[in-house]
């Protein structure tokens, strides 16, 4: 039987011996994700398999960041729990790394799609609960100096029974320090990307995550992406059409950003035209999440205190 030694000298089962793969549930940049059963306990887990020797470059940077960041964050109920990291070998004898996560049966993308397909609206209290959990999880990340940088419905895992939401996929996450370093701006799925990132800002902070949260909020209400661009330019134009073309008055410094050009001039529309069905308090919170000027954008911590959440039973969240 294939065994590996731990640092303490105790023999433990290798990934192959410890888990029974049940089905493939997804595929990422560096490998596959399986639903699996831990043989010793019968517990269902998610196994994220990472190929190590693909190009002789060692552990992929996304895996390295994800694991070290989850090591810091995994104790929060709204961040997916990394239970273990195991090394194993594939059929060709190449080293593979298995990240063992708690198993969640769906994600927000699938959840929204299921409502879209049946033509039903997501109940307002469900939206409120999910949004509160998301803000709470992001506030925890930000309070621990971590930017997620790739928030989207697909990266928010859910348990259908309990309606618990957890932030996942921290492969692009970044631990930030004060002051903020220059970061790469080729991050974040286009639809949820903040305007400062689209315009080439390299100094950015937690406000980029809040913009994504705002886009997700609107999507929960309408079951459609708020800004669904197919290129960086189109993405900006979608934003400008709804929120108005920014200028120095509403966003000081915008015209000095690297990728700023002269854009068509649109006046801002009311958010209620794009997100009908969201009540007044919800629209107020959404507008604060979609502020152009990053420093004016509401923080996750402050969002949790917004009156929109006043009638929510927060005890179990």
């Amino acid at each position: 039987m294939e065994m590996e030694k731990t640092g303490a000298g105790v023999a433990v089962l290798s990934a192959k011996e410890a888990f029974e793969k049940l089905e493939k549930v997804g595929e990422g940049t560096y490998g596959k994700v399986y639903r699996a059963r831990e043989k010793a306990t019968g517990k269902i887990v998610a196994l994220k398999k990472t190929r190590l020797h693909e190009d002789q470059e060692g552990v992929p940077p996304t895996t390295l960041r994800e694991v070290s960041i989850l090591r810091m964050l995994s104790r929060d109920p709204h961040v997916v729990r990394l239970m273990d990291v195991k090394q194993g070998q594939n059929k060709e004898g190449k080293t593979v790394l298995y990240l063992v996560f708690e198993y969640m049966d769906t994600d927000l993308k699938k959840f929204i799609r299921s409502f879209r397909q049946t033509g039903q609206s997501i109940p307002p209290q469900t939206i409120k609960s999910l949004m509160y959990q998301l803000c709470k999880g992001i506030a925890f990340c930000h309070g621990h100096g971590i930017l997620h940088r790739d928030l989207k419905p697909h990266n928010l895992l859910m348990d259908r029974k309990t309606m618990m939401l957890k932030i996942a996929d921290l492969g692009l996450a970044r631990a930030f320090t004060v002051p903020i370093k220059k970061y790469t701006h080729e991050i974040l799925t286009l639809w949820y990307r903040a305007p400062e990132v689209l315009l080439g800002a390299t100094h950015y902070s937690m406000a980029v995550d809040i913009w994504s949260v705002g886009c997700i909020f609107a999507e929960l209400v309408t079951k459609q992406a708020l800004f669904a661009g197919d290129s960086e330019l189109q993405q900006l134009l979608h934003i400008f059409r709804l929120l108005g073309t920014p200028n120095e008055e509403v966003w000081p410094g915008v015209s000095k950003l690297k990728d700023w050009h002269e854009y068509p001039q649109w006046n801002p529309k009311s958010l209620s035209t794009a997100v009908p069905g969201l009540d007044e308090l919800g629209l107020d919170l959404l507008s604060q999440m979609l502020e152009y000027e990053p420093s004016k954008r509401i923080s996750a911590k402050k969002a949790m205190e917004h009156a929109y959440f006043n009638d929510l039973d927060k005890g179990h969240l």
Partner: protein
Amino acid sequence: METRAAAKRKANAAIVVVVEKQHPKRQRVVLGELPNLQNLIVSKIQNPRKEKLQCRKNPNANKPSPTNNTLSSPQLDGSYVSDIHEYLREMEMQKKRRPMVNYIEKFQKIVTPTMRGILVDWLVEVAEEYKLLSDTLHLSVSYIDRFLSVNPETDPPSVDEFCSITDNTYDKAEVVKMEADILKSLKFEMGNPTVSTFLRRYANVASDVQKTPNSQIEHLGSYIGELSLLDYDCLRFLPSIVAASVIFLAKFIIWPEVHPWTSSLCECSGYKPAELKECVLILHDLYLSRKAASFKAVREKYKHQKFKCVANLPTPPYVPSCYFEDQ
């Protein structure tokens, strides 16, 4: 069977690779040649401390603490600054993220504090050549200390063998294997705060209160912070204490006649002057080359105009003891 030198080369290469991966879009470091450093001895501390400077109150000592929005980024929400700092302080104390302070005496049969200093001094050159962030250097040294704390059986090379460390003396597969060993050994706990993590915050507060050009405090702080890496004795202090002591000393060097510690610095760091005394005096000895005099890379680096030649700034030979009394 591979030589000790080869094993050590791989470990060091792998550690740099691990850190660099956390700073994407940055060129990987290849290990360059070390000069022949076999005869190095850490110089003994000379010059007993004399006290001549009169202590003057800092005119800014009781100024209110600067608001969080002075922390250099318009996009950093002020409400998180103290949360993050509190968390980092809590995190730096976790056993799993700290090297064992006396690991050389306890475990290492071959590594000595001098050899460690030689390695760190050389890593400073590597970091300079590849324009790596200060954080990368501090993390690399932290990983090395942590790795050597839990791997007493790792045989490092002798000082002679350091001379033969050149590019391409190991293949990628070996480095990748070593990287995996290091990650496993450190249990993927790679997110530890270092001196440079805290330095940024303290330097901002110091320059804001004193209305100094930020760059002077920052460069001098970086210089003293990197000197601290050379000294095995500094391992016993938490990174936040070293960072606070660095700022204390930097301010003393710039204004020797003014009390270096303000209420703002006390408030943001959580340390009183008396708590910094031991560390400040060690750093002062390092600054005056009364310790680690033979390690040249850091000192040469900070003599450059790029760093405002801070390594050339003079300092009195002692720090008045009244500066360590609470104001």
